């Protein structure tokens, strides 16, 4: 069994960050996780975001959340990125695209227009 000592070390490292988070995350990534999303491949997408946020030490500034069906099942997996009053909706997301979204949009500040719902509907 992986040691609880390691978990304690995580706790000690995290405690400072938790205080920062109470000021509110700058960006929020939301993954659609209803039956439609799950069947279309949302689970590895969610897990990719979690791992990237941990790896890049973005806890506190970026939040990852889940939501239910938003009625556009044919576009799943759907991911929305919220920042202030701006919302970007990505469709047909897979783990590779999720990594790219973290790199270019979350870290780099540039939404990837070609993966958005706006691009698909043109």
């Amino acid at each position, binding site marked *: 069994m992986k040691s609880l000592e390691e*978990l304690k070390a995580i*706790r000690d490292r*995290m405690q400072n960050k938790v205080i920062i988070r109470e000021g509110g995350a700058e960006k929020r990534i939301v993954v659609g996780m209803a*039956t439609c999303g799950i069947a279309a491949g949302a*689970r*590895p997408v969610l897990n990719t975001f*979690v791992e990237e946020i*941990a790896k890049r030490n973005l806890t506190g500034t970026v939040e990852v959340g889940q939501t239910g069906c938003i009625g556009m099942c044919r576009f799943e997996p759907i991911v929305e990125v919220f920042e202030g009053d701006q919302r970007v909706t990505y469709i047909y997301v897979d783990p590779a695209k999720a990594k790219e979204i973290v790199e270019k949009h979350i870290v780099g500040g540039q939404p990837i227009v070609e993966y958005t719902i706006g691009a698909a509907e043109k």
Partner: protein
Amino acid sequence: MKELSLNILDIAQNSIHADATFVQILLDETDRTLELAIIDDGKGMSEEFLSRVTDPFSTTRTTRKVGMGLPLLKLAAEQTGGSLVIESRERASHPFDHGTRVTAFFYKDHLDFTPLGDVISTVVSLVQGSENVDFLFRHSLPGKLVELDTRDLREVLGEVPLSSPEVLVWIRESLEEQYGEGE
């Protein structure tokens, strides 16, 4: 669904939406069979809703009138010669012992058995999405027992959220370690 673990994720989401505070996911596996139980202490279902809950045209969701979660699990179990049983006690009539138990039984050697797949990712996804819910995950296989109880982790973590990415990575590694190679 390509993996049973995806059905598990989907069904356990129902528990969370039913205001459960504690959800148990129990897998009991032999060489030939797999029994899955998802047990919650949520608000339960009325007898009337329970009687039609595996009908795809019954759903609690509000964006449309079709719910595929339980029908898909029922199909996955029955196509192996197994079965699905749902028991529920509604909060209104059972204020102290309400909740729902979904039990599915599978024959693993049947041609139409859907493999369990990446159950670790299912557990991580559930913990990620519901900070206020505790989970007990227990998978007994021939010669092996894999277990995770978030109540134990919370005790260590104090005010640090269970859903912190760093904690989720620890949970994944802990489960991977318990399964050992080949999982």
